């Protein structure tokens, strides 16, 4: 795909085929007159993307407010305990619920105890416009934790959703650049939150400032960031 296609809410999307996987920002209309005509429309403004087989389609745009979508990894703050589970703030319009048993190997007797204010890295297991989002701290297929769970220590930096998605890209240079300088643990949620942990407070601050700088100026190059890092005393 060479040229970028911009779509606005209501625009028809040329996604056709027997099997389609629609990502956030796209909607399938059910009452189209002819099944042959395109029945997928965009519900938000942004650039349209699809995979090489034209099966998966999604719309990408930058925003600051998170709208939960199923299977996305998010970082939440436990707001309060609710019976068997927890209510977690993931930055969306509504708090999400996290069941006390939705952890790897959790049972009635043995379940993790989270304090109010704890950070969790979780996967959105249910996102429906009429229901509260639900979270799970294990992988849907393997039922193993796969890195999900409570995030202890470290620091969390908020940024725009676009920056978060950029950081999640394995080809993005920032986290490897930082990781090459000092031991770094990081979790990126697509809800505009990045958690990281470095051995020293100065290094943690350096990570926070790098993410902030990238957020303010997404076109910052790796060389510029290197110079910036050198100017900091880590």
């Amino acid at each position: 795909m060479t040229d970028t296609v911009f779509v606005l809410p209501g625009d028809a999307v040329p996604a056709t085929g027997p099997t389609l996987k629609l990502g956030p920002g796209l909607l399938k209309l059910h009452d189209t007159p002819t099944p042959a005509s395109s029945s997928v429309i965009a519900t938000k403004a942004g650039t349209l993307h699809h995979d090489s087989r034209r099966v998966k389609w999604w719309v990408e745009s930058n925003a600051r407010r998170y709208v939960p979508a199923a299977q996305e990894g998010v970082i939440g703050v436990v707001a309060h305990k609710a019976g068997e589970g927890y209510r977690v703030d993931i930055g969306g319009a509504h708090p999400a619920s996290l069941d006390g048993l939705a952890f790897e190997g959790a049972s009635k007797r043995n379940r993790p105890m989270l304090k109010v204010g704890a950070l969790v890295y979780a996967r959105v297991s249910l996102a429906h416009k009429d229901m509260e989002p639900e979270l799970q701290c294990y992988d849907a297929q393997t039922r193993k934790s796969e890195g999900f769970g409570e995030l202890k220590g470290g620091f969390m930096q908020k940024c725009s959703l676009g920056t978060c998605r950029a950081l999640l890209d394995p080809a993005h240079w920032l986290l490897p650049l930082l990781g090459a300088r000092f031991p770094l643990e990081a979790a990126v949620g697509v809800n505009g939150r990045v958690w990281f942990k470095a051995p020293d407070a100065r290094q943690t601050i350096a990570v926070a400032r790098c993410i902030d700088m990238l957020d303010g100026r997404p076109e910052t190059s790796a060389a510029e960031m290197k110079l910036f890092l050198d100017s900091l005393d880590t």
Partner: protein
Amino acid sequence: MRPLSPSIPEKEFVLEALGQGLRVDGRAPLEMRQPVLTFGPEFGYVECSLGKTKVICSIDAKMVRPSPERLFEGVISLHSEISPMASTEYEAGYGRPSDAEVEISRMLDKILRRSDAIDKESLCVLAGQRVWHLKLTFHFLSDSGNMLDCACLAGITALRHFRRPEVEVVGEEVIVHAPEERAPLPLAIHHTPLCFTFALFNDSLPALLDPSHLEETLCAGTMSIALNAQKELCVLQKAGGVAMEADAILKLLEIGVMKAKELDKLIEEALAADFATRVVEVR
């Protein structure tokens, strides 16, 4: 949604770093974010940003009848409503203003109106009949901490940037001259009060000037000092129950004086730079 308290890791890290004299955004404890002032096309429209905090102040003037108690004075009114645009923490006001909004509005009122920065008598056009009503509207665009100082800076700069139309009184008749006819006049301003907010912490942690949003929510109390570059103290407000020694307060005041001088110069330069670009054409 009610404001959430920061998560445990955030809280612990900020306090731990502060124990080493470090702030998360890399500033020194008594370092302000560099304010940026941008002027709109009209007089009295100022956009002020402190880091990611952004506030717009716009002024408009209209002629009204003065209040019966103060026949020779103009009216200044401030409107500051915090909408959810600033941050998810603020709800659309369903009539009842939030605590943060009340605090900011009251401080702005004290600093900009009740400190007598504007000569209200100079706003009188025809005694008992016609006075100017200045309406300052604040728009809080983005909250990244310390909206008060940012709004105050926007407000006072807007007042100094504002130009009101020239009026002529012939007998009982008031003639308002259009800006194309006669150059609009600046307001009579006695002094330039500026506000500085410090976040105070317990356990002998240092006081922080211009706190970020996170620091603001984690601190045990704040102290806002409003003063001008001539070392005249206008307002001092201390919120939260942090015990402070008199010496410590005096020290913060001294820092305030120093910063007020710097900021006063910055406003002066920004205004001069803006007026250099404007051509006031008078026929």
